[in-house]
């Protein structure tokens, strides 16, 4: 399986690795999500832009939690839903599970794809060749040395 990402220009002019996805709402609609690929993130977290859309999917009244980062702890809620990606052959991939949603706008402008998802793939961040990719069988990568 190959899911292609891209190097995305963000609001500060910095180019960051990203993957295009969709998230399923409680009414079954799919909404667009741009994920930052973050090898340092333990969990996948949606930005606060999705809070009002995803709150109906909160797991329980005690679904509020905290996530820790360089700024300290921030508030979040935990939801259960599906994330959708598109493979290189145009067929969908669905990732079901529990994910977090930031509760504050300034926590992150982008949603973050964490290792709870990406540990299922080989991840390529290749800025010089402008490649961002998620690989799983039968796709694979090789590292070679030019002779």
């Amino acid at each position, binding site marked *: 399986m190959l899911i292609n990402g891209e190097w995305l220009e963000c609001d500060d002019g910095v180019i960051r690795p990203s993957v295009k996805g969709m998230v399923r709402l409680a009414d079954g609609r799919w909404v667009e999500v741009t994920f930052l690929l973050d090898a340092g993130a333990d969990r996948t977290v949606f930005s606060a832009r999705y809070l009002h859309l995803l709150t109906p999917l909160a797991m329980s009244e005690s679904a509020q939690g905290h996530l820790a980062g360089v700024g300290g702890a921030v508030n979040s809620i935990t939801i259960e839903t599906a994330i959708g990606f598109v493979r290189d052959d145009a067929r969908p991939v669905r990732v079901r*599970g529990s994910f977090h949603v930031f509760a504050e706008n300034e926590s992150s402008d982008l949603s973050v794809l964490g290792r709870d998802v990406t540990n299922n793939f080989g991840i390529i961040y290749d800025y010089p060749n402008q490649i961002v990719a998620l690989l799983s069988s039968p796709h694979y990568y090789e590292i070679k040395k030019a002779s």
Partner: protein
Amino acid sequence: MSSPVIIEEMPYDPEFERAFAKAERNRTWFSEHVKELEVFKKYRGRYVAAAGGELFVADTAEEIDRLVRDKYPDEVPHVRYILREKCDRIYAYKRRVA
């Protein structure tokens, strides 16, 4: 520790493909117009959305979704929150050591 995610390769889904294609179209439009519209200069601390060949601006996520839905109910907008300040972003865990 939460349960592991479940990854499923799905058969062709026309509804999902249509939604993804609409989102892609709006994302592309945004990328192509972001500089000319000076989005990252003019709208810091606000939400912006690209849908139907237009840029929408609002103060909240609920409002941006409502604006787009009122004019283009079938669209899948590309929505961004523009952080108030530009700064380098580092993902690390801050903890007290003493």
